[in-house]
């Protein structure tokens, strides 16, 4: 079905240059937004830009999934596809061949992440206007959208590039714009400023660690291209420089991915950023960092190296477990719903890392499936949250009392996403948690499956508290009239809620994506 994009929809130039266009288009548009006079126009432009990126991401996915017949048909039609081999698109920027120039390299794993980022980016752009208009001062709105597009381009760039240093550049592009976006929450809550500052310091530590690690690898191998690392590193496994590089990189990226206990920038940043920023970041930022981590763990390095196996067993898996328990507990005790959701996000990162640390196709695809599902549910939850902030201005549990009667459509979608987060059958969360459970069973990690169940019980408690307040408590302020979030917000919200239900019923589409992605990266890294 998705092949029809290649054969019918996309023009030849789009197929040939989808990879750079996906990143460059939002970057260029972002600079142009400085000259756009009104926020509303900037909003429309950013919808178009993110939508175009989504289109390019679909083309890339179609290329990665295309079989030889389709590819041959494209070649016959004279369309350049940049296929390195079946399943891998490689694009040399500026025509400089990869080891020297920068290479964009897309396989099933980044195709999936790109689709996720651009899809969420587009949905978030659509819903953003009412809340941005309410929370950002008029003269800053076009700049806000500019910063948003820079951040979007940065995240897409991290996911698309095949060059380790270029990945750092994109990481910084996205991070720096994120600091700005978070700080703009100061219009609503002054605590956004310290939150952004803390995020800046910690994010910089993470990025620095990463670039130091890349420096070590460069010193040892003399290249920055990831595919070259795959080829060269097996020779250098015993090399202390490489090992130090490995340690720096996983800690640096782990910080960006909010790996417990390096998550402490996250709750405040999510809680005080403008609602729209929180929605977008929660569904994409940590996911992209996690992608980079997976990329390094499985293709640059390899689970065949004993030092990596040791880090899986003694560092990543224990930290994942700790995140699932500790942050779920912290989520239980929060009084601010946004902070509850933020802590829950860290706990969910634990689930994904647990799947990754199994280092099997089953485990990694379970982690990736949860990554996608979590983007859908957390995106939905924060979107509903944005609607509540917009209409009722409250984010604490007490403000949520009785909202089920005041804003039934918003809160029903919220409830669907909440049930999905808990992992109730017939929702997306159930599918991925079940798969994760099976993966831990298969690996013989019984204790881990116990923790998954326990953490899910905690999720029942912390989401249950919110749902109880929403649906069963009388509002504290009886003047709360019946008022829904604007339609512009409700539609993307329900798209996400229904996506959760749909995946709950039939997970084959994301399951296949995750499975292909896991199969594309596992076993790629050097064998010993």
């Amino acid at each position, binding site marked *: 079905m998705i092949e029809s994009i290649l054969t019918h929809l996309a023009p030849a130039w789009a197929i040939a240059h989808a990879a750079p266009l996906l990143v460059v288009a939002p970057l260029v548009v972002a600079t142009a937004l400085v000259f756009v006079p009104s926020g509303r126009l900037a909003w429309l432009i950013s919808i178009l830009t993110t939508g175009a990126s989504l289109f390019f991401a679909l083309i890339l996915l179609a290329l990665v999934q295309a079989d030889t017949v389709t590819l041959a048909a494209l070649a016959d039609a004279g369309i350049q596809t940049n296929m390195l081999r079946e399943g891998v698109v490689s694009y040399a920027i500026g025509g400089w061949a990869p080891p020297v120039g920068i290479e964009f390299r897309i396989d099933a794993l980044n195709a999936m992440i790109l689709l996720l980022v651009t899809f969420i980016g587009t949905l978030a752009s659509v819903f953003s206007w009412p809340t941005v208009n309410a929370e950002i001062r008029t003269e800053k709105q076009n700049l806000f959208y500019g910063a948003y597009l820079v951040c979007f381009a940065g995240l897409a760039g991290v996911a698309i590039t095949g060059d380790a240093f270029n990945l750092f550049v994109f990481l910084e592009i996205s991070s720096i714009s994120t600091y700005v976006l978070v700080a703009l929450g100061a219009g609503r809550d002054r605590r956004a400023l310290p939150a952004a500052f803390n995020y800046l310091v910690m994010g910089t530590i993470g990025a620095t*660690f990463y670039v130091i690690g890349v420096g070590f690898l460069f010193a040892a191998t003399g290249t920055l291209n990831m595919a070259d690392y795959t080829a060269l590193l097996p020779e250098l496994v015993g090399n202390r420089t490489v090992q130090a590089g490995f340690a720096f990189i996983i800690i640096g990226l782990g910080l960006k991915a909010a790996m417990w206990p*390096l998550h402490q920038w996250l709750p405040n940043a999510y809680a005080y950023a403008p609602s729209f920023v929180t929605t977008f970041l929660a569904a994409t930022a940590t996911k992209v960092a996690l992608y980079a981590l997976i990329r390094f763990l499985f293709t640059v390095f390899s689970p065949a190296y004993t030092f990596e196996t040791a880090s899986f067993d003694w560092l990543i898996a224990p930290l994942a477990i700790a995140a699932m328990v500790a942050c779920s507990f912290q989520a239980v005790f929060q009084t601010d719903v946004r902070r509850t959701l933020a802590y829950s996000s860290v706990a969910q990162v634990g689930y994904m890392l647990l799947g990754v640390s199994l280092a099997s196709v089953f485990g990694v695809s379970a982690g990736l499936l949860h990554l996608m599902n979590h983007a859908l549910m957390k995106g939905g939850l924060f979107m509903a949250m944005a609607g509540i902030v917009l209409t009722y201005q409250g984010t604490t549990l007490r403000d949520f009392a009785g909202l089920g009667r005041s804003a039934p459509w918003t809160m029903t979608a919220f409830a669907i996403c909440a049930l999905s987060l808990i992992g109730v059958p017939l929702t997306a969360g159930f599918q991925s948690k079940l798969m994760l459970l099976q993966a831990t069973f298969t690996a013989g990690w019984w204790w881990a499956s116990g923790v998954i169940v326990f953490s899910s019980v905690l999720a029942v408690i912390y989401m249950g508290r919110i749902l109880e307040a929403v649906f069963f408590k009388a509002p504290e302020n009886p003047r709360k009239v019946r008022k829904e979030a604007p339609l512009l917000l409700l539609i993307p919200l329900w798209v996400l809620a229904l996506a959760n239900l749909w995946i709950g019923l039939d997970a084959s589409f994301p399951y296949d994506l995750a499975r292909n992605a896991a199969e594309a990266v596992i076993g790629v890294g050097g064998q010993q």
Partner: protein
Amino acid sequence: MTALIETLNPGFVLVLAGIVGLFIPMQRVRQGLMVIAPLVGIYMLTQANQSMELATAHVLGLDLVLYRVDSLNFIFGLAFLIAALLNAIYALHGDDKLQDGMAMAYAGAAVAAAFAGDFLTLFVFWELTAVSSVFLILRAGTRAAYFASMRYLAIQILSGVLLLAGITYVYQASGALTLQAFTSLDEPGALLVFLAVGIKAAFPFLHNWLQDSYPKATVVGAVVLSAFTTKLAVLTCARLFPGFDILIWIGAVMTVFPVFFAVIENDLRKVLAYSLNNQVGFMICAIGVGTPLALNGAAAHAFAHIIYKALLFMSMGAVLYRTGTAKASELGGLYKSMPFTAVFCLIGAASISAFPLFSGFVAKSLTMSAVAHEGYVVAWLMLLFASAGVLEHSGIKIPYFAFFGHDSGKRVKEAPFNMLLAMGLASAICILVGLPSFFGLGYGWLYNLLPYPEVANHYEPFTLGHILTQMQLLMLAVLAFILLKRFGLYPPEKPGTILDTDWAYRRLGFGFANWAGTVWGKAGPAMTRVAGLLAQRGYDRIEAVFSPRGQLSRGPLTGGMAIWTAALLGMAMLLSFLTVQH
């Protein structure tokens, strides 16, 4: 569209119709749907290719076969669909959304389970039959029906849980979910599945739920219930445990013991429930023998039995509907006011007693011949005794006490037309299947549908020997009834409670629950206090760590995290350096 008709499990159509039916308030529209759905199902079944996986699904790494028709389940599915049609017609006089919808969903679940090609699909619909059918009992609205339905549900769910546990074992052991015969009962998986099937098929000592619940169901409910659950278990048993010797004895015992209960029971619908048990015994025994002839017998018997048992339940239901009672002691002489119902009841009675020219004869002959042919003399004698018993309690007792016997003086209207129509159709099937072959009808039609048609076609039920044996048996049984009646030795029809083995769990279970309740009432508060104290301590401790003011959230944020980062980096490096490279 053709592809859909050929590859969709007809049970899904029925389940869907049932669920939709729950929400259609217009009686005629809903009931039209209920009549059309089984007809569509029958048409779909005739279009299906046999012995192919017609619909498969891949869920969470498991390969499911949603629709598979072969010579064994074809005849069961056909009988289920016909029964669903008859039930729908029989229910036309009333306006009950819940009953109509649930009856159809229940029938659909049974059909879907019959055509399931793997264990997991079977399990899902196995449970659905339990959950949907309980409403048919609950709907009777009496207190007794409420408790019976809860007991029924508990036992059916237990069967489902046992099945699931068995499936898990099987899957762990073999890695496949395909429905195929077990080789022995030694492995725990096979034993658990066997018990699950045993509960649904109402094996001796696992049978009480049946007599407990069916007589308490609604008029329509009892008819619906009689067709599906036990026969689904028979089909599953034939699929998974053919030729298991133990089944011969289970079946034989099953045919014999209900005879005694049925003869002394006063509630005529309960008599039918016991007789149901006895009939299923014949099928189980045949499955235990396991030869092609015997399996033919089980399948043919199941088909014939579904129709004539439904017919008998329908006639008793009609009596209950008109007079308000089904107790032998309160009935009698109804042939004057309900002549058609009486005739239909007699046809059903003749069929179940296996009079030649009725469906029971051509079906039961197969089983009897197979058991005799394999040389199981004791089992054969038990079945023979049970055959006489069937005539005694179902063939004579039911029509005699309801429609003849001493006149109760009740003068009621004839049953509603739709009931008569359903009974008429069932009667027609009973007779048509029982006749010698003519123009593609008669028993030859039934034999062609059996699992081993080539074996069945060589079998001639209407030999002098068969007819003679059967007539001797029947005549002697009639004679015995007449003599016992004449000399006043036949157990009189009088109200009373019969103690069956379910007394044990009903009485003891209730007693235990009572005792446990008392103990809990005393010990509960003390334990709650202690537990509460401990829980409070634990909660305080957790809160002190995790709450926003807790230990985890204190201290300078940035500095704290920088330290954490450095510590983790150190750890990662140590790990990297210390692991020995090979």
